[in-house]
């Protein structure tokens, strides 16, 4: 028989492993780089990205304890860490630390992607727009995701993603123009 059932203690052991701490260890180790990388792209600061990533895993496990296992752990973790990192970016005290006092982490960039100054400017805008626009714009600009990929992740329609990005662009254009005016005066 090519496929055979595993019964008895072996099965119990396997199920116990998956339902207990070992499964949590496996999820953490498997997704850590993905989750931390997402936080790093938003925050541009490795230490804060580590902090946010750990909080995201704790919230993910808490959610799993309440609601059961996720069909798509990576997607859920990305949504959680995105919200946490954007909240941190928008927090006034953290914002100063992230965007004004310390320079961007060179490892936060992607080979061939945006330059550190461009990333800093983008983060400054993300910190000042409504949360929903910041979320969608961060997927589009920081991660380079296309409308359909974002829509699938968020469980929405790609046209809704497009509309949110249009609003973000209009708001970002105004913010950047105001910034230039202030700098000129």
């Amino acid at each position: 028989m090519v496929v055979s059932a595993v019964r008895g203690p072996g099965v119990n052991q396997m199920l116990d492993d998956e339902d207990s701490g070992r499964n949590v260890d496996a999820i953490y180790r498997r997704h850590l780089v993905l989750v931390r990388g997402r936080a790093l792209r938003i925050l541009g600061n490795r230490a804060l990205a580590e902090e946010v990533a750990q909080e995201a895993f704790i919230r993910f496990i808490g959610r799993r304890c309440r609601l059961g296992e996720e069909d798509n752990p990576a997607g859920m973790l990305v949504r959680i860490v995105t919200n946490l990192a954007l909240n941190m970016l928008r927090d006034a005290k953290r914002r100063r630390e992230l965007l004004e006092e310390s320079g961007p982490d060179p490892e936060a960039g992607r080979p061939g992607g945006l330059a550190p100054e461009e990333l800093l400017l983008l983060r400054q805008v993300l910190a000042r727009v409504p949360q929903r626009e910041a979320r969608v714009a961060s997927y589009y600009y920081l991660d380079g995701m296309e409308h359909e990929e974002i829509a699938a992740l968020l469980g929405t329609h790609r046209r809704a993603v497009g509309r949110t990005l249009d609003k973000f662009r209009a708001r970002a254009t105004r913010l950047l123009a105001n910034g230039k005016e202030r700098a000129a005066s």
Partner: protein
Amino acid sequence: MSDDVFRQNKPSPGCPSALALSRYVIDDLDPDAARRIDEHLQSCPPCRTQVEREREEVEVARTAPVPPALAAAASRPRRAWLPWSLTAVAAAAAVVVLSVWILPGTTPRPHDTTRVKGALALSAALLRDGELVFEQRDLAAVTSLRAGDRLRLRVTGVGSGHLALTGCDPSGCQVLFRGPVPAGGAIPVGVRATAGESRIEVTACPDATRLDRALANPKNPPESCRRRSYPIRVDQNP
């Protein structure tokens, strides 16, 4: 978009997203998406660099200590349902039942069918060499296994009734599990793969009697039963 307020953070517009590359590195993409990235990497040095960098980080993370706060969160007792969730589910169920029973010209026969929640399907968690490779992947997307791999299967698309899980190879079929649909759909037996061509079948019926008939005569099962078959190729462990 050339007149966009910002550029996208990737080498060129045709490159995969950073998230897709991260999911590629941990083997979390469906086979078609993974193949597209394979092809892209052949001609894109910056994306290749990113993938190599993440692979190294993933290798380090494989032995990373799990933060104590996370271990503590995982050891808290699991609460499957909160009272308010139960109330909400009961209310939703009542609406569904009512909307079925008040349809004109129909005679409800609630015991004639399995309760359907979508297409009958199996998803799998794969354990390889003691490591969890993936969780809850559609079994249809699991195209190749290695001998010794262990699968934990979950059935979706059926809320009640009886089901059977059957493993087949050219020499015949063997029932791996049969019984009432388990809570949450989690099949309470693991499946171990040995090398060769095989298939896993799941059959769902409203009750044990009809399930018996479906298994005894798989080519002509009762109308109220549903079946789905998944071809599986198992390679020798390298």
